[in-house]
């Protein structure tokens, strides 16, 4: 065949191929082939179920529905039948199904090898190590828990107490300073808040619609009392240095300088007394005399709150039938007891203690595990005092340290001494679900099942006005080799000869439910949530004006600039970091590239000689420096810079690691006068254009 013949043959072949279906079918098949690429998500197909349970990652223990398809959780949804949240849900709980398979999720037990790297080991080896070190440590064992609502704390504390160690601590949270304040004012039970039945709520510092207390329940109340286009059934007044999500929902926002909450509350107390509100209790004359010094002019000078807004807030409180005043910290930990004491005093003036829509004196739960710590006792024990003492060499380091569901390395200021304590501890164990900064500092890391993968519980989170009890039920198999932390600790206790009085988690939860009079079977089978209204006698409170006066004497900020942290639950917690599912709600006003965004008003920006988008170098009093990007926002107090918390992780995954600055690192720990509580949260800083 010559060249011309070949060309004719090829032309005939081309026409033949075009006239056959092979080319088109191959193109079709290529289309389908593109759907096989590994990064394309695969759907799980099968029967859908909507299973009610509670979130153990969300600090407020939000109740939700877990939608499973063929047994695999694919989504979490709000639960309208939940008697606490009434169909509301937090951003963190909404991301829990995706967090279950997060890249940072721990898959296997890891042990630190001599060269510092982690090697995967079997559970049998991990359990053997745990037992050996526990037996060798004797009574020199300490444990930290980051979950205040779980009954697993009783297992851990009983294991330590029965072996002669009292070093079981809860991570610092809102309740510890509040409990100190409540006790100082004569409270004998547990401080609760009946937000639902109040017709006027004043929250000072406490972001009740974002991260303080039982957030989902608070939001539900807000939704019900603020119908769209209708007249609010509850007046909501909020004082904070930043116009955050909670301020956005407030009927009246009081812009306040960071750290001046105490002065604002004393000023309100003074105006209330002047208006004739004088709920009688011992110490009233002395308290009234002390508060009289906080005139509106003085309060405006200290706090920056305009006098007309202060008067409007007082008018809202005096005009309400069931007012309620709440104090808390923006960061959710490291808050002082003083503002809470002042808030209790204001509630006493308003007669808002022990009545519907006021402060509630709730009973403390009794332990159901043999020899476990009482919750009221745990609230008085400070983890930071312990770690600072160990770091300073005043207390001997434990031979074994267990860190459960907590990330103190990230969540506490660097002068808390956590890293030093972990270094000094003979053998440190982290039981966690995600590879956190604390896990990276421990000798042994054990993967814990999530609340939706194992039996656990949520007993009355702080901020509730009801006793609530909900079971976290295993609605899905544990991810990879994760195991129930509760079962792990119970088995360990049995191995080292501790008699807990319970053989497994279901029995522990049954005992807890029985002690509360909760319907365990219904809770187990259908996710029912137990609630109980506390109608017991209220503790005889008194105006502890001396304690309030001492707390009010705390040194005022003297730096030219203050940091006001803003917590957003969509940014996760110290234990979870930023949920991959939630990265799309991280805004340009929180994170710009890899830099945190510092929001400030135009006056502050002009003083610092920066404009929108400029780089700003912040130097904290503890010499920590960080570079951020400036953004002008008029919803921030003058001489204040707002930074979003939850950024600046050095562990976890690509969604969190190296993103922004950890605002906690800018803060330093000080002691509150009077209570001697370790406090942090507001930072004195200097800043200059970078």
């Amino acid at each position: 065949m010559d060249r011309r013949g070949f060309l004719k043959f090829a032309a005939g072949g081309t026409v033949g191929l075009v006239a056959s279906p092979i080319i088109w079918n191959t193109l079709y098949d290529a289309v389908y082939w593109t759907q096989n690429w590994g990064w394309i998500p695969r759907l799980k197909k099968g029967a859908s179920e909507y299973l009610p349970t509670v979130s153990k990652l969300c600090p407020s223990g939000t109740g939700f529905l877990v939608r499973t398809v063929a047994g695999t959780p694919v989504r979490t949804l709000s639960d309208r039948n939940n008697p606490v949240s009434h169909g509301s849900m937090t951003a963190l709980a909404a991301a829990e199904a995706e967090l279950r398979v997060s890249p940072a999720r721990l898959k296997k037990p890891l042990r630190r090898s001599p060269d510092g790297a982690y090697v995967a080991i079997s559970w049998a080896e991990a359990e053997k190590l745990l037992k050996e070190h526990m037996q060798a440590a004797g009574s020199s064992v300490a444990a930290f828990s980051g979950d205040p609502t779980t009954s697993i704390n009783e297992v851990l504390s009983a294991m330590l107490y029965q072996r002669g160690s009292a070093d079981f601590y809860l991570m610092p949270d809102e309740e510890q300073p509040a409990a100190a304040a409540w006790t100082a004012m004569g409270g004998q039970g547990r401080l609760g808040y009946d937000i639902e039945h109040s017709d006027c709520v004043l929250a000072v510092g406490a972001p009740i619609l974002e991260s303080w207390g039982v957030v989902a329940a608070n939001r539900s109340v807000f939704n019900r009392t603020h119908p769209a286009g209708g007249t609010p059934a509850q007046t909501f007044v909020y004082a904070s240095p930043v116009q955050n999500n909670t301020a956005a929902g407030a009927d009246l926002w009081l812009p306040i300088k960071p750290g001046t909450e105490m002065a604002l509350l004393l000023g309100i107390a003074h105006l209330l007394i002047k208006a004739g509100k004088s709920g009688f209790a011992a110490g009233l004359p002395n308290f009234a005399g002390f508060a009289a010094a906080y005139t509106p002019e003085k309060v405006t000078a200290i706090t920056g709150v305009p006098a007309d807004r202060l008067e409007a807030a007082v008018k809202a409180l005096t005009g309400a039938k069931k007012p309620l005043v709440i104090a808390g910290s923006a960061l959710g930990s490291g808050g002082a007891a003083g503002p809470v004491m002042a808030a209790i005093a204001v509630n006493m003036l308003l007669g808002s203690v022990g009545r519907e829509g006021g402060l509630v004196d709730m009973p403390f739960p009794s332990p159901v595990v043999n020899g476990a710590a009482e919750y009221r006792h745990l609230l008085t024990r400070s983890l930071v005092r312990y770690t600072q003492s160990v770091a300073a060499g005043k207390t001997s380091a434990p031979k074994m340290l267990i860190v459960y569901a907590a990330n103190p390395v990230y969540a506490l200021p660097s002068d808390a001494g956590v890293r030093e304590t972990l270094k000094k501890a003979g053998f440190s164990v982290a039981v966690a679900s995600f590879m956190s900064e604390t896990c990276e500092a421990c000798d042994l890391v054990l993967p814990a099942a999530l609340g939706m993968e194992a039996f656990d519980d949520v007993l009355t989170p702080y901020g509730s006005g009801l006793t609530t009890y909900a079971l976290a039920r295993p609605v899905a198999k544990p991810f990879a080799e994760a195991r129930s932390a509760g079962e792990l600790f119970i088995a360990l206790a049995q191995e080292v000869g501790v008699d807990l009085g319970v053989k497994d988690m279901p029995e522990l939860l049954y005992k807890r439910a029985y002690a509360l009079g909760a319907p365990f079977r219904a809770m187990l089978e259908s996710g029912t949530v137990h609630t109980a209204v506390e109608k017991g006698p209220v503790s005889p409170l008194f105006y502890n004006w001396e304690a309030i006066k001492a707390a009010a004497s705390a040194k005022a900020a003297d730096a030219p600039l203050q940091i006001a942290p803003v917590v957003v639950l969509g940014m996760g917690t110290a234990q979870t970091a930023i949920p991959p599912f939630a990265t799309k709600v991280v805004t340009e006003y929180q994170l710009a590239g890899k830099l945190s965004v510092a929001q400030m008003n135009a006056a502050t920006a002009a003083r610092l000689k920066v404009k929108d988008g400029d780089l700003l170098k912040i130097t904290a009093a503890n010499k920590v420096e960080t570079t951020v990007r400036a953004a002008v926002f008029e919803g921030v107090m003058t001489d204040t810079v707002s930074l979003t918390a939850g950024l600046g992780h050095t562990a976890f995954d690509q969604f969190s690691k190296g993103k922004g600055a950890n605002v906690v690192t800018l803060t330093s720990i000080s002691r509150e006068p009077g209570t001697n509580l370790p406090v942090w949260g507001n930072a004195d800083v200097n800043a200059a254009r970078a």
Partner: protein
Amino acid sequence: MEERNNTTTPESAGKTCCCGWGAFVVGLVVALILGWWVLPNLMKETKKQPIAFSHVEHVQNQGMTCDQCHFVRADGTFSGAPTTEQCAECHFTILGKDPEEARFVREYVQTGREIKTEWLIYQKQPDNVFFSHALHFGPLAELQTPADIAKFCSKCHLNVAETSVPPLYRENRLSGYSENTMLMWGCERCHAEHMALGNTNASNACFTCHK
């Protein structure tokens, strides 16, 4: 002066090609054979279903209805092929003399092996398409007999209702999908042409199927 030949035309120019149009025809025929028969068969792998299930036996002889095995769940999802557990509601023991039934009971029911995961779905779609059987079942309520239902279902599916042995499954070696998997034009018979099956009012917007 010697005459120079400056032409570039080869000496063979003007001669008839040795093959004429025969080469074209040969190429055409070879390509048609390859394109219509050889390559399509080479690109597809023929597979059998794990069990020679007889729809005729179950529907015509035993009087079962379609929705005893293929039904919409309470949550709106479609059950698809039945599970071993569903089959075992009747076949918990060997009921007849069919060797395939005996094999099913021994290899699946008695061992707990899941038939549903092994069953080859003739029209399995990639996950980039959201398809709800429940939304497409509107006319089913008015259909009474299995034959009518089968006729309706076979608008998209192979009509297996009258088979004693499942059709062979032909899987594309490149994509791994069945040769019966529908392409978008198959959906657009109704979504783009509303009157193709009566007025379906089906939207043809992208997000109707691609979420």
